[in-house]
Protein backbone atom coordinates (compact mmCIF):
# COMPACT_ATOMS: atom_id res chain seq x y z
CA UNK A 1 0.00 0.00 0.00
CA UNK A 2 2.66 2.54 1.09
CA UNK A 3 5.04 1.58 -1.72
CA UNK A 4 2.19 1.84 -4.23
CA UNK A 5 1.28 5.30 -2.93
CA UNK A 6 4.88 6.47 -3.18
CA UNK A 7 5.25 5.05 -6.69
CA UNK A 8 2.06 6.78 -7.77
CA UNK A 9 3.23 9.98 -6.03
CA UNK A 10 6.43 10.02 -8.07
CA UNK A 11 4.36 9.66 -11.25
CA UNK A 12 2.09 12.56 -10.29
CA UNK A 13 5.06 14.67 -9.16
CA UNK A 14 7.19 14.43 -12.30
CA UNK A 15 5.31 17.00 -14.42
CA UNK A 16 5.06 19.31 -11.41
CA UNK A 17 8.81 19.19 -10.78
CA UNK A 18 9.62 19.91 -14.43
CA UNK A 19 7.20 22.81 -14.83
CA UNK A 20 7.91 24.33 -11.42
CA UNK A 21 11.67 24.33 -12.09
CA UNK A 22 10.92 26.16 -15.34
CA UNK A 23 8.77 28.66 -13.51
CA UNK A 24 11.45 29.04 -10.84
CA UNK A 25 14.14 29.86 -13.41
CA UNK A 26 11.86 32.35 -15.15
CA UNK A 27 10.95 33.97 -11.87
CA UNK A 28 14.61 34.18 -10.83
CA UNK A 29 15.14 36.25 -13.97
CA UNK A 30 12.30 38.55 -12.96
CA UNK A 31 9.16 37.24 -14.66
CA UNK A 32 6.31 35.37 -13.01
CA UNK A 33 5.22 32.85 -15.63
CA UNK A 34 1.48 32.20 -15.50
CA UNK A 35 1.55 30.48 -18.90
CA UNK A 36 3.14 27.20 -17.74
CA UNK A 37 -0.12 25.30 -18.14
CA UNK A 38 -0.59 26.37 -21.76
CA UNK A 39 2.98 25.48 -22.68
CA UNK A 40 2.52 22.12 -21.00
CA UNK A 41 -0.55 21.54 -23.16
CA UNK A 42 1.37 22.45 -26.30
CA UNK A 43 4.22 20.12 -25.36
CA UNK A 44 1.79 17.27 -24.70
CA UNK A 45 0.23 17.58 -28.14
CA UNK A 46 3.48 18.04 -30.08
CA UNK A 47 5.06 15.08 -28.27
CA UNK A 48 2.18 12.76 -29.12
CA UNK A 49 2.16 13.77 -32.79
CA UNK A 50 5.93 13.31 -33.14
CA UNK A 51 5.92 10.06 -31.18
CA UNK A 52 3.29 8.52 -33.43
CA UNK A 53 5.24 6.34 -35.79
CA UNK A 54 8.35 8.15 -34.61
CA UNK A 55 10.80 8.16 -31.78
CA UNK A 56 10.24 9.29 -28.19
CA UNK A 57 13.53 11.19 -28.04
CA UNK A 58 12.59 13.23 -31.11
CA UNK A 59 9.19 13.80 -29.55
CA UNK A 60 10.77 15.14 -26.36
CA UNK A 61 13.01 17.52 -28.30
CA UNK A 62 10.04 18.70 -30.38
CA UNK A 63 7.89 19.24 -27.30
CA UNK A 64 10.66 21.17 -25.56
CA UNK A 65 11.43 23.31 -28.62
CA UNK A 66 7.82 24.18 -29.48
CA UNK A 67 6.86 25.03 -25.92
CA UNK A 68 10.20 26.81 -25.49
CA UNK A 69 9.43 29.04 -28.45
CA UNK A 70 6.01 29.76 -26.95
CA UNK A 71 7.71 30.74 -23.68
CA UNK A 72 10.21 32.89 -25.56
CA UNK A 73 7.44 34.69 -27.50
CA UNK A 74 5.53 35.25 -24.29
CA UNK A 75 8.64 36.78 -22.71
CA UNK A 76 9.14 39.01 -25.76
CA UNK A 77 5.67 40.43 -25.21
CA UNK A 78 6.63 41.29 -21.65
CA UNK A 79 10.18 42.57 -22.22
CA UNK A 80 9.83 44.38 -25.54
CA UNK A 81 6.18 45.42 -25.54
CA UNK A 82 5.96 46.07 -21.80
CA UNK A 83 2.86 43.95 -21.51
CA UNK A 84 1.67 42.89 -18.07
CA UNK A 85 3.15 39.46 -17.24
CA UNK A 86 -0.02 38.13 -15.65
CA UNK A 87 -2.21 39.17 -18.57
CA UNK A 88 0.22 37.76 -21.15
CA UNK A 89 0.48 34.50 -19.23
CA UNK A 90 -3.25 34.04 -18.91
CA UNK A 91 -3.68 35.09 -22.54
CA UNK A 92 -1.13 32.51 -23.63
CA UNK A 93 -3.02 29.76 -21.81
CA UNK A 94 -6.28 30.72 -23.49
CA UNK A 95 -4.64 31.15 -26.90
CA UNK A 96 -2.90 27.77 -26.79
CA UNK A 97 -6.04 26.00 -25.57
CA UNK A 98 -8.01 27.57 -28.42
CA UNK A 99 -5.35 26.80 -31.03
CA UNK A 100 -5.06 23.20 -29.86
CA UNK A 101 -8.81 22.78 -30.03
CA UNK A 102 -8.93 24.26 -33.51
CA UNK A 103 -6.00 22.17 -34.72
CA UNK A 104 -7.50 18.92 -33.43
CA UNK A 105 -10.71 19.68 -35.21
CA UNK A 106 -9.10 20.88 -38.45
CA UNK A 107 -6.40 18.20 -38.72
CA UNK A 108 -8.05 15.19 -37.12
CA UNK A 109 -11.75 16.06 -37.12
CA UNK A 110 -11.83 15.31 -33.42
CA UNK A 111 -12.83 17.44 -30.51
CA UNK A 112 -10.83 17.14 -27.36
CA UNK A 113 -9.35 13.68 -27.67
CA UNK A 114 -6.51 12.46 -29.84
CA UNK A 115 -5.30 8.89 -30.16
CA UNK A 116 -2.65 8.08 -32.71
CA UNK A 117 -1.26 4.75 -33.89
CA UNK A 118 2.20 3.40 -32.96
CA UNK A 119 3.02 5.94 -30.28
CA UNK A 120 6.63 5.54 -29.18
CA UNK A 121 6.24 5.70 -25.39
CA UNK A 122 8.87 6.99 -22.99
CA UNK A 123 11.00 4.03 -21.91
CA UNK A 124 10.74 2.87 -18.32
CA UNK A 125 13.82 2.19 -16.29
CA UNK A 126 13.80 -0.97 -14.22
CA UNK A 127 16.17 -0.91 -11.28
CA UNK A 128 17.29 -4.13 -9.59
CA UNK A 129 16.67 -2.75 -6.10
CA UNK A 130 15.56 -4.92 -3.18
CA UNK A 131 12.05 -4.92 -1.73
CA UNK A 132 10.27 -1.64 -1.14
CA UNK A 133 12.99 0.47 -2.81
CA UNK A 134 12.49 -1.40 -6.04
CA UNK A 135 8.73 -1.13 -5.76
CA UNK A 136 8.92 2.65 -5.39
CA UNK A 137 11.85 3.56 -7.62
CA UNK A 138 11.85 0.95 -10.34
CA UNK A 139 9.71 1.26 -13.44
CA UNK A 140 9.66 5.04 -13.73
CA UNK A 141 10.03 6.81 -17.02
CA UNK A 142 13.36 8.24 -18.08
CA UNK A 143 11.83 11.72 -17.76
CA UNK A 144 11.14 11.21 -14.05
CA UNK A 145 14.87 10.72 -13.47
CA UNK A 146 15.72 13.67 -15.70
CA UNK A 147 13.29 15.82 -13.70
CA UNK A 148 14.91 14.91 -10.39
CA UNK A 149 18.41 15.28 -11.83
CA UNK A 150 17.46 18.79 -12.89
CA UNK A 151 16.80 19.82 -9.28
CA UNK A 152 20.45 19.82 -8.09
CA UNK A 153 21.55 20.98 -11.54
CA UNK A 154 19.27 24.03 -11.33
CA UNK A 155 20.45 24.75 -7.79
CA UNK A 156 24.06 24.52 -8.91
CA UNK A 157 23.60 26.71 -11.97
CA UNK A 158 21.69 29.38 -10.06
CA UNK A 159 24.12 29.64 -7.14
CA UNK A 160 27.53 28.51 -8.44
CA UNK A 161 27.83 29.70 -12.01
CA UNK A 162 28.29 33.12 -13.55
CA UNK A 163 25.20 32.58 -15.68
CA UNK A 164 23.08 31.84 -12.61
CA UNK A 165 24.39 34.84 -10.73
CA UNK A 166 23.70 37.11 -13.69
CA UNK A 167 20.23 35.64 -14.09
CA UNK A 168 19.42 36.31 -10.48
CA UNK A 169 20.96 39.79 -10.67
CA UNK A 170 18.64 40.60 -13.56
CA UNK A 171 15.73 39.30 -11.53
CA UNK A 172 16.68 41.34 -8.50
CA UNK A 173 17.12 44.62 -10.33
CA UNK A 174 16.87 45.18 -14.07
CA UNK A 175 18.21 48.72 -13.77
CA UNK A 176 21.32 47.88 -11.74
CA UNK A 177 22.12 44.78 -13.77
CA UNK A 178 21.85 46.79 -16.99
CA UNK A 179 24.18 49.36 -15.43
CA UNK A 180 26.87 46.72 -14.94
CA UNK A 181 26.58 45.61 -18.57
CA UNK A 182 24.10 42.74 -18.35
CA UNK A 183 21.13 42.40 -20.69
CA UNK A 184 18.14 41.79 -18.45
CA UNK A 185 15.70 41.64 -21.36
CA UNK A 186 17.68 38.98 -23.19
CA UNK A 187 18.21 37.11 -19.94
CA UNK A 188 14.47 37.05 -19.28
CA UNK A 189 13.70 35.93 -22.82
CA UNK A 190 16.23 33.11 -22.52
CA UNK A 191 14.77 32.08 -19.16
CA UNK A 192 11.34 32.17 -20.80
CA UNK A 193 12.56 29.68 -23.39
CA UNK A 194 13.85 27.38 -20.63
CA UNK A 195 10.58 27.67 -18.68
CA UNK A 196 8.64 26.80 -21.83
CA UNK A 197 10.91 23.90 -22.70
CA UNK A 198 10.62 22.36 -19.24
CA UNK A 199 6.84 22.81 -19.27
CA UNK A 200 6.77 21.20 -22.70
CA UNK A 201 8.63 18.20 -21.28
CA UNK A 202 6.10 18.06 -18.44
CA UNK A 203 3.33 17.90 -21.03
CA UNK A 204 5.20 15.24 -23.01
CA UNK A 205 5.48 13.19 -19.83
CA UNK A 206 1.70 13.23 -19.47
CA UNK A 207 0.92 12.40 -23.10
CA UNK A 208 3.60 9.91 -24.12
CA UNK A 209 4.83 8.94 -20.65
CA UNK A 210 1.72 8.29 -18.59
CA UNK A 211 -1.23 7.67 -20.87
CA UNK A 212 -0.16 7.47 -24.51
CA UNK A 213 -2.87 9.79 -25.80
CA UNK A 214 -3.87 13.44 -25.75
CA UNK A 215 -6.87 15.15 -24.28
CA UNK A 216 -7.39 18.90 -24.20
CA UNK A 217 -7.73 18.68 -20.41
CA UNK A 218 -4.62 16.53 -20.01
CA UNK A 219 -2.70 19.13 -17.98
CA UNK A 220 -5.44 19.10 -15.35
CA UNK A 221 -4.33 22.54 -14.14
CA UNK A 222 -0.88 21.16 -13.21
CA UNK A 223 0.76 24.30 -14.61
CA UNK A 224 -0.96 26.28 -11.87
CA UNK A 225 0.02 23.81 -9.17
CA UNK A 226 3.60 24.19 -10.43
CA UNK A 227 3.14 27.94 -10.06
CA UNK A 228 2.15 27.42 -6.44
CA UNK A 229 5.10 25.07 -5.92
CA UNK A 230 7.79 27.54 -6.97
CA UNK A 231 6.06 30.32 -5.07
CA UNK A 232 5.97 28.30 -1.87
CA UNK A 233 9.45 27.02 -2.56
CA UNK A 234 10.59 30.65 -2.65
CA UNK A 235 12.80 30.11 -5.71
CA UNK A 236 14.85 27.39 -4.03
CA UNK A 237 14.98 24.31 -6.27
CA UNK A 238 14.94 21.66 -3.51
CA UNK A 239 12.16 23.38 -1.58
CA UNK A 240 10.19 23.75 -4.80
CA UNK A 241 10.62 20.09 -5.69
CA UNK A 242 9.69 19.11 -2.14
CA UNK A 243 6.50 21.13 -2.48
CA UNK A 244 5.70 19.36 -5.74
CA UNK A 245 6.40 16.00 -4.10
CA UNK A 246 4.22 16.87 -1.15
CA UNK A 247 1.36 17.60 -3.48
CA UNK A 248 2.01 14.41 -5.45
CA UNK A 249 2.03 12.29 -2.29
CA UNK A 250 -1.25 13.66 -1.00
CA UNK A 251 -2.81 13.34 -4.43
CA UNK A 252 -1.79 9.68 -4.49
CA UNK A 253 -3.09 9.20 -0.94
CA UNK A 254 -6.36 10.83 -1.96
CA UNK A 255 -6.76 8.40 -4.84
CA UNK A 256 -6.08 5.37 -2.63
CA UNK A 257 -8.29 6.50 0.23
CA UNK A 258 -11.32 6.72 -2.01
CA UNK A 259 -13.65 3.80 -1.74
CA UNK A 260 -12.54 3.07 1.81
CA UNK A 261 -15.49 4.63 3.50
CA UNK A 262 -14.34 8.25 3.60
CA UNK A 263 -16.57 10.89 1.99
CA UNK A 264 -15.20 11.54 -1.51
CA UNK A 265 -15.69 15.30 -1.44
CA UNK A 266 -13.64 15.65 1.73
CA UNK A 267 -10.85 13.38 0.55
CA UNK A 268 -10.41 15.26 -2.68
CA UNK A 269 -9.59 18.45 -0.80
CA UNK A 270 -6.88 16.57 1.14
CA UNK A 271 -3.91 17.47 -1.11
CA UNK A 272 -4.76 21.16 -0.95
CA UNK A 273 -5.43 21.17 2.79
CA UNK A 274 -2.31 19.18 3.62
CA UNK A 275 -0.09 21.43 1.52
CA UNK A 276 -1.52 24.45 3.40
CA UNK A 277 -0.99 22.75 6.75
CA UNK A 278 2.59 21.75 6.01
CA UNK A 279 3.43 25.23 4.72
CA UNK A 280 1.86 26.75 7.81
CA UNK A 281 3.97 24.52 10.05
CA UNK A 282 7.11 25.33 8.08
CA UNK A 283 6.29 29.03 8.35
CA UNK A 284 5.76 28.77 12.11
CA UNK A 285 9.01 26.86 12.54
CA UNK A 286 10.88 29.47 10.53
CA UNK A 287 9.39 32.24 12.63
CA UNK A 288 10.28 30.48 15.85
CA UNK A 289 13.85 30.06 14.62
CA UNK A 290 14.01 33.74 13.71
CA UNK A 291 12.63 34.73 17.10
CA UNK A 292 15.04 32.40 18.83
CA UNK A 293 17.91 34.01 16.97
CA UNK A 294 16.67 37.49 17.81
CA UNK A 295 16.35 36.52 21.47
CA UNK A 296 19.86 35.08 21.67
CA UNK A 297 21.23 38.22 20.06
CA UNK A 298 19.12 40.45 22.27
Amino acid at each position, binding site marked *: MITEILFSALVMTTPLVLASLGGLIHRSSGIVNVGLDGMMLLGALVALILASGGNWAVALVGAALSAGVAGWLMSLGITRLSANEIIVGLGLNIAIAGAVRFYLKAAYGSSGNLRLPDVSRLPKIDLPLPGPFGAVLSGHSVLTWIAWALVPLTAWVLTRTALGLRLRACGTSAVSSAAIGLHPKRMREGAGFVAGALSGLAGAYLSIGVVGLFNEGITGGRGFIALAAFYFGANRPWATAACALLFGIFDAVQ*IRLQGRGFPAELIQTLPYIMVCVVLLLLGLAARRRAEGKAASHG
Partner: protein
Amino acid sequence: MFCKPAFAASTALALLFAAPAFAEGRPAALIISQSGLGDQSYNDLAYAGFERALASTGIEGRTVESKEVVAQADEILRRASDAGFGLILDLEFAHGEPIAAVAKDYPDINYVILNQVVPGDNIASVVFREEEGSYLAGVLAAQMTTLPGVEGINEQPILGVIGGTKSAGIDKFIVGFIEGAMSVNPDIDVKVGYSNNFADPAVGMQMANAMYDDGADIVYHIAGGTGIGVIEAAKERGAFAIGVDTDQDGLAPGHVLTSMVKRGDVAVERIVADYAGDKFPKGQTISLGLAEDGVGLSPMEHTKDIIPADVMAKVDAARAGILDGSIKVWDVLSQGAPDYLK
Protein backbone atom coordinates in the same frame (compact mmCIF):
# COMPACT_ATOMS: atom_id res chain seq x y z
CA MET B 1 -14.46 42.24 -52.83
CA PHE B 2 -14.00 42.13 -49.10
CA CYS B 3 -16.66 42.48 -46.52
CA LYS B 4 -16.11 43.15 -42.85
CA PRO B 5 -15.86 40.02 -40.73
CA ALA B 6 -18.83 41.05 -38.59
CA PHE B 7 -20.92 41.47 -41.70
CA ALA B 8 -19.73 38.16 -43.08
CA ALA B 9 -20.60 36.47 -39.80
CA SER B 10 -24.08 37.92 -39.70
CA THR B 11 -24.63 36.97 -43.33
CA ALA B 12 -23.61 33.45 -42.53
CA LEU B 13 -25.98 33.39 -39.60
CA ALA B 14 -28.77 34.80 -41.74
CA LEU B 15 -28.13 32.09 -44.33
CA LEU B 16 -27.99 29.50 -41.62
CA PHE B 17 -31.36 30.52 -40.27
CA ALA B 18 -33.03 31.43 -43.57
CA ALA B 19 -35.27 28.41 -43.52
CA PRO B 20 -38.46 28.23 -45.50
CA ALA B 21 -41.39 28.84 -43.19
CA PHE B 22 -44.17 26.64 -44.38
CA ALA B 23 -46.83 26.01 -41.81
CA GLU B 24 -46.92 22.22 -42.02
CA GLY B 25 -43.71 20.33 -41.46
CA ARG B 26 -41.60 23.33 -40.62
CA PRO B 27 -37.89 22.43 -40.54
CA ALA B 28 -36.06 21.15 -37.50
CA ALA B 29 -32.90 22.51 -35.87
CA LEU B 30 -30.37 20.55 -33.85
CA ILE B 31 -28.32 22.66 -31.45
CA ILE B 32 -24.94 20.97 -30.97
CA SER B 33 -23.49 20.90 -27.46
CA GLN B 34 -20.16 22.28 -26.34
CA SER B 35 -17.96 19.37 -27.30
CA GLY B 36 -18.95 19.98 -30.92
CA LEU B 37 -19.55 17.82 -33.96
CA GLY B 38 -16.73 15.35 -34.46
CA ASP B 39 -16.58 14.45 -30.77
CA GLN B 40 -16.95 10.77 -31.69
CA SER B 41 -19.43 10.62 -28.87
CA TYR B 42 -22.60 12.34 -27.75
CA ASN B 43 -22.98 14.98 -30.52
CA ASP B 44 -22.00 12.73 -33.40
CA LEU B 45 -24.37 10.05 -32.23
CA ALA B 46 -27.31 12.46 -31.88
CA TYR B 47 -26.48 13.95 -35.26
CA ALA B 48 -26.55 10.51 -36.87
CA GLY B 49 -30.05 10.00 -35.49
CA PHE B 50 -31.05 13.45 -36.72
CA GLU B 51 -29.84 12.65 -40.26
CA ARG B 52 -31.68 9.34 -40.29
CA ALA B 53 -34.87 10.98 -39.09
CA LEU B 54 -34.67 13.72 -41.70
CA ALA B 55 -34.17 11.14 -44.43
CA SER B 56 -37.10 9.00 -43.33
CA THR B 57 -39.57 11.81 -42.57
CA GLY B 58 -38.67 14.23 -45.36
CA ILE B 59 -38.50 17.07 -42.85
CA GLU B 60 -35.81 19.63 -43.56
CA GLY B 61 -33.25 20.24 -40.89
CA ARG B 62 -30.11 22.13 -39.97
CA THR B 63 -27.54 21.98 -37.23
CA VAL B 64 -26.59 25.00 -35.16
CA GLU B 65 -23.04 24.94 -33.88
CA SER B 66 -21.33 27.71 -31.93
CA LYS B 67 -18.20 27.87 -29.84
CA GLU B 68 -20.11 30.19 -27.51
CA VAL B 69 -22.97 27.75 -27.13
CA VAL B 70 -22.98 28.05 -23.34
CA ALA B 71 -22.22 31.77 -22.95
CA GLN B 72 -24.70 32.87 -25.62
CA ALA B 73 -27.43 30.34 -24.85
CA ASP B 74 -30.25 32.86 -24.90
CA GLU B 75 -29.09 34.54 -28.11
CA ILE B 76 -28.64 31.27 -29.99
CA LEU B 77 -32.02 29.94 -28.90
CA ARG B 78 -33.82 33.16 -29.83
CA ARG B 79 -32.16 33.38 -33.23
CA ALA B 80 -33.11 29.81 -33.98
CA SER B 81 -36.64 30.51 -32.76
CA ASP B 82 -36.95 33.55 -35.04
CA ALA B 83 -35.71 31.61 -38.05
CA GLY B 84 -38.85 29.65 -38.84
CA PHE B 85 -38.01 26.29 -37.32
CA GLY B 86 -40.92 24.31 -35.96
CA LEU B 87 -38.78 21.99 -33.85
CA ILE B 88 -35.64 22.88 -31.93
CA LEU B 89 -33.66 20.02 -30.39
CA ASP B 90 -31.04 21.14 -27.91
CA LEU B 91 -28.14 18.87 -27.00
CA GLU B 92 -26.45 21.38 -24.67
CA PHE B 93 -26.97 20.45 -21.02
CA ALA B 94 -26.41 24.06 -19.88
CA HIS B 95 -29.44 25.21 -21.88
CA GLY B 96 -31.94 23.91 -19.34
CA GLU B 97 -32.87 27.28 -17.86
CA PRO B 98 -32.49 29.39 -21.03
CA ILE B 99 -34.71 27.05 -23.01
CA ALA B 100 -37.48 27.37 -20.40
CA ALA B 101 -37.32 31.17 -20.68
CA VAL B 102 -37.16 31.30 -24.49
CA ALA B 103 -39.86 28.66 -25.02
CA LYS B 104 -42.38 30.85 -23.16
CA ASP B 105 -41.99 33.56 -25.82
CA TYR B 106 -42.51 31.19 -28.76
CA PRO B 107 -45.57 29.10 -27.92
CA ASP B 108 -45.93 27.67 -31.44
CA ILE B 109 -42.42 26.22 -31.60
CA ASN B 110 -41.58 22.83 -30.12
CA TYR B 111 -38.45 22.49 -27.98
CA VAL B 112 -36.59 19.41 -26.85
CA ILE B 113 -33.99 19.19 -24.10
CA LEU B 114 -31.97 16.08 -23.24
CA ASN B 115 -30.79 14.55 -19.96
CA GLN B 116 -32.93 16.77 -17.73
CA VAL B 117 -36.55 17.64 -17.10
CA VAL B 118 -37.55 21.20 -17.98
CA PRO B 119 -41.19 22.11 -17.42
CA GLY B 120 -43.01 24.01 -20.18
CA ASP B 121 -46.09 23.49 -22.35
CA ASN B 122 -44.08 23.37 -25.58
CA ILE B 123 -41.00 21.59 -24.21
CA ALA B 124 -40.35 17.87 -24.32
CA SER B 125 -37.68 16.51 -21.97
CA VAL B 126 -35.77 13.35 -22.75
CA VAL B 127 -34.07 11.41 -19.98
CA PHE B 128 -32.25 8.10 -20.13
CA ARG B 129 -32.57 5.33 -17.60
CA GLU B 130 -28.80 4.83 -17.45
CA GLU B 131 -29.23 2.75 -14.30
CA GLU B 132 -30.79 -0.03 -16.37
CA GLY B 133 -27.89 -0.36 -18.79
CA SER B 134 -25.42 -0.02 -15.90
CA TYR B 135 -27.26 -2.82 -14.08
CA LEU B 136 -26.60 -5.15 -17.00
CA ALA B 137 -22.93 -4.12 -17.02
CA GLY B 138 -22.85 -4.98 -13.30
CA VAL B 139 -24.44 -8.39 -13.89
CA LEU B 140 -21.87 -9.13 -16.57
CA ALA B 141 -18.86 -7.83 -14.61
CA ALA B 142 -19.78 -9.59 -11.35
CA GLN B 143 -19.81 -12.94 -13.14
CA MET B 144 -16.64 -12.30 -15.10
CA THR B 145 -14.58 -11.08 -12.11
CA THR B 146 -14.24 -14.58 -10.63
CA LEU B 147 -14.23 -16.56 -13.84
CA PRO B 148 -11.25 -18.92 -13.85
CA GLY B 149 -9.04 -19.22 -16.89
CA VAL B 150 -9.52 -15.74 -18.30
CA GLU B 151 -6.34 -13.75 -18.71
CA GLY B 152 -6.43 -10.56 -16.63
CA ILE B 153 -9.08 -11.90 -14.23
CA ASN B 154 -8.20 -12.84 -10.64
CA GLU B 155 -10.26 -14.98 -8.28
CA GLN B 156 -11.27 -12.10 -5.99
CA PRO B 157 -14.83 -10.76 -6.31
CA ILE B 158 -13.75 -7.13 -6.57
CA LEU B 159 -14.91 -4.56 -9.13
CA GLY B 160 -14.28 -0.83 -9.49
CA VAL B 161 -16.25 2.14 -10.74
CA ILE B 162 -14.93 5.66 -11.33
CA GLY B 163 -17.26 8.62 -11.68
CA GLY B 164 -16.26 12.03 -13.03
CA THR B 165 -17.88 13.87 -10.17
CA LYS B 166 -20.06 13.11 -7.18
CA SER B 167 -23.54 14.02 -8.37
CA ALA B 168 -26.90 12.35 -8.73
CA GLY B 169 -26.49 12.22 -12.51
CA ILE B 170 -23.30 10.15 -12.16
CA ASP B 171 -24.35 8.15 -9.10
CA LYS B 172 -27.29 6.96 -11.19
CA PHE B 173 -24.85 4.91 -13.27
CA ILE B 174 -22.79 3.83 -10.27
CA VAL B 175 -25.75 2.57 -8.24
CA GLY B 176 -27.19 0.72 -11.23
CA PHE B 177 -23.83 -1.01 -11.69
CA ILE B 178 -23.53 -1.94 -8.00
CA GLU B 179 -27.11 -3.23 -7.87
CA GLY B 180 -26.49 -5.39 -10.92
CA ALA B 181 -23.27 -6.75 -9.44
CA MET B 182 -24.91 -7.48 -6.08
CA SER B 183 -27.75 -9.32 -7.77
CA VAL B 184 -25.16 -11.88 -8.91
CA ASN B 185 -23.04 -11.91 -5.76
CA PRO B 186 -24.37 -10.10 -2.67
CA ASP B 187 -20.91 -10.10 -1.09
CA ILE B 188 -19.14 -8.49 -4.02
CA ASP B 189 -16.84 -5.56 -3.26
CA VAL B 190 -17.37 -2.65 -5.65
CA LYS B 191 -14.80 0.10 -5.10
CA VAL B 192 -16.15 3.56 -5.88
CA GLY B 193 -13.96 6.55 -6.78
CA TYR B 194 -14.53 10.05 -8.13
CA SER B 195 -11.95 11.79 -10.30
CA ASN B 196 -13.39 15.30 -9.89
CA ASN B 197 -12.46 15.93 -13.50
CA PHE B 198 -13.86 14.79 -16.83
CA ALA B 199 -10.77 15.44 -18.95
CA ASP B 200 -7.65 14.28 -17.10
CA PRO B 201 -6.63 10.83 -18.38
CA ALA B 202 -3.54 10.75 -16.13
CA VAL B 203 -5.72 10.88 -13.03
CA GLY B 204 -8.10 8.29 -14.49
CA MET B 205 -5.16 6.00 -15.05
CA GLN B 206 -3.80 6.42 -11.51
CA MET B 207 -7.23 5.79 -10.02
CA ALA B 208 -7.77 2.69 -12.11
CA ASN B 209 -4.30 1.39 -11.22
CA ALA B 210 -5.09 1.90 -7.53
CA MET B 211 -8.20 -0.23 -7.95
CA TYR B 212 -6.35 -2.91 -9.91
CA ASP B 213 -3.67 -2.97 -7.18
CA ASP B 214 -6.42 -3.60 -4.64
CA GLY B 215 -7.61 -6.67 -6.50
CA ALA B 216 -10.18 -5.25 -8.89
CA ASP B 217 -9.96 -6.62 -12.41
CA ILE B 218 -12.86 -4.79 -14.10
CA VAL B 219 -13.36 -1.03 -13.72
CA TYR B 220 -16.38 0.83 -15.07
CA HIS B 221 -15.84 4.51 -15.85
CA ILE B 222 -18.37 7.32 -16.15
CA ALA B 223 -15.79 10.05 -16.53
CA GLY B 224 -15.48 11.28 -20.14
CA GLY B 225 -11.86 12.02 -21.07
CA THR B 226 -10.63 10.98 -17.62
CA GLY B 227 -12.14 7.59 -18.37
CA ILE B 228 -9.96 7.25 -21.46
CA GLY B 229 -7.10 6.92 -18.95
CA VAL B 230 -9.02 4.13 -17.20
CA ILE B 231 -9.26 2.24 -20.48
CA GLU B 232 -5.57 2.87 -21.13
CA ALA B 233 -4.73 1.50 -17.67
CA ALA B 234 -6.76 -1.63 -18.41
CA LYS B 235 -4.80 -2.13 -21.61
CA GLU B 236 -1.44 -1.62 -19.91
CA ARG B 237 -2.25 -3.91 -16.99
CA GLY B 238 -3.89 -6.53 -19.12
CA ALA B 239 -7.08 -6.04 -17.10
CA PHE B 240 -10.54 -4.84 -18.10
CA ALA B 241 -12.47 -1.58 -18.28
CA ILE B 242 -16.10 -0.87 -19.11
CA GLY B 243 -16.81 2.05 -21.42
CA VAL B 244 -19.68 4.50 -21.33
CA ASP B 245 -22.00 6.61 -23.53
CA THR B 246 -20.74 5.29 -26.88
CA ASP B 247 -19.30 1.95 -27.93
CA GLN B 248 -15.75 2.33 -26.58
CA ASP B 249 -14.86 -1.35 -27.01
CA GLY B 250 -12.55 -0.50 -29.91
CA LEU B 251 -10.40 1.93 -27.88
CA ALA B 252 -8.47 -1.01 -26.42
CA PRO B 253 -9.76 -4.12 -28.19
CA GLY B 254 -10.05 -7.03 -25.82
CA HIS B 255 -9.62 -4.89 -22.71
CA VAL B 256 -12.94 -3.08 -22.76
CA LEU B 257 -15.32 -5.76 -21.54
CA THR B 258 -18.35 -3.87 -22.80
CA SER B 259 -19.68 -0.32 -23.01
CA MET B 260 -22.86 1.07 -21.50
CA VAL B 261 -24.20 2.78 -24.59
CA LYS B 262 -26.59 5.70 -24.37
CA ARG B 263 -28.53 6.04 -27.60
CA GLY B 264 -28.88 9.78 -28.13
CA ASP B 265 -29.53 8.93 -31.78
CA VAL B 266 -32.57 6.86 -30.88
CA ALA B 267 -33.94 9.73 -28.80
CA VAL B 268 -33.47 12.32 -31.54
CA GLU B 269 -34.83 10.03 -34.24
CA ARG B 270 -37.92 9.26 -32.22
CA ILE B 271 -38.69 12.89 -31.41
CA VAL B 272 -38.32 14.04 -35.01
CA ALA B 273 -40.57 11.19 -36.15
CA ASP B 274 -43.18 12.16 -33.54
CA TYR B 275 -42.95 15.76 -34.67
CA ALA B 276 -43.36 14.80 -38.33
CA GLY B 277 -46.37 12.67 -37.43
CA ASP B 278 -47.91 15.58 -35.51
CA LYS B 279 -47.55 13.68 -32.23
CA PHE B 280 -44.92 15.88 -30.57
CA PRO B 281 -44.95 15.09 -26.82
CA LYS B 282 -45.59 18.66 -25.64
CA GLY B 283 -44.83 19.22 -21.99
CA GLN B 284 -43.94 15.60 -21.47
CA THR B 285 -40.91 13.79 -20.17
CA ILE B 286 -39.77 10.90 -22.28
CA SER B 287 -37.80 8.31 -20.43
CA LEU B 288 -35.70 5.99 -22.53
CA GLY B 289 -34.41 2.77 -21.04
CA LEU B 290 -33.77 -0.79 -22.15
CA ALA B 291 -37.35 -1.20 -23.38
CA GLU B 292 -37.05 1.76 -25.74
CA ASP B 293 -33.53 0.80 -26.85
CA GLY B 294 -32.38 4.10 -25.33
CA VAL B 295 -29.61 2.44 -23.30
CA GLY B 296 -27.94 -0.93 -23.54
CA LEU B 297 -24.68 -2.82 -23.72
CA SER B 298 -22.39 -2.66 -26.75
CA PRO B 299 -22.23 -5.70 -29.08
CA MET B 300 -18.91 -6.67 -27.36
CA GLU B 301 -17.22 -7.31 -30.65
CA HIS B 302 -13.77 -7.85 -29.17
CA THR B 303 -14.71 -9.66 -25.97
CA LYS B 304 -17.61 -11.92 -26.87
CA ASP B 305 -15.24 -14.86 -27.33
CA ILE B 306 -14.15 -14.80 -23.67
CA ILE B 307 -17.67 -14.41 -22.28
CA PRO B 308 -19.21 -17.86 -21.66
CA ALA B 309 -22.75 -18.51 -22.83
CA ASP B 310 -24.14 -19.04 -19.31
CA VAL B 311 -22.77 -15.63 -18.26
CA MET B 312 -24.45 -14.00 -21.23
CA ALA B 313 -27.63 -15.92 -20.43
CA LYS B 314 -27.72 -14.31 -16.98
CA VAL B 315 -27.30 -10.87 -18.55
CA ASP B 316 -30.16 -11.62 -20.91
CA ALA B 317 -32.27 -12.84 -18.00
CA ALA B 318 -31.60 -9.60 -16.11
CA ARG B 319 -32.57 -7.66 -19.21
CA ALA B 320 -35.80 -9.64 -19.49
CA GLY B 321 -36.46 -9.04 -15.79
CA ILE B 322 -36.11 -5.29 -16.21
CA LEU B 323 -38.32 -5.34 -19.28
CA ASP B 324 -41.14 -7.29 -17.59
CA GLY B 325 -40.85 -5.23 -14.42
CA SER B 326 -39.78 -8.05 -12.10
CA ILE B 327 -36.47 -6.24 -11.56
CA LYS B 328 -36.68 -2.61 -10.47
CA VAL B 329 -33.35 -0.84 -10.67
CA TRP B 330 -32.66 1.83 -8.07
CA ASP B 331 -32.85 5.34 -9.59
CA VAL B 332 -30.77 7.88 -7.67
CA LEU B 333 -32.53 10.83 -9.34
CA SER B 334 -35.96 9.92 -7.99
CA GLN B 335 -35.05 7.74 -4.99
CA GLY B 336 -31.93 9.47 -3.66
CA ALA B 337 -28.66 7.69 -2.93
CA PRO B 338 -28.92 4.25 -1.29
CA ASP B 339 -27.37 3.81 2.16
CA TYR B 340 -24.19 2.20 0.86
CA LEU B 341 -23.32 5.29 -1.21
CA LYS B 342 -24.12 8.01 1.31
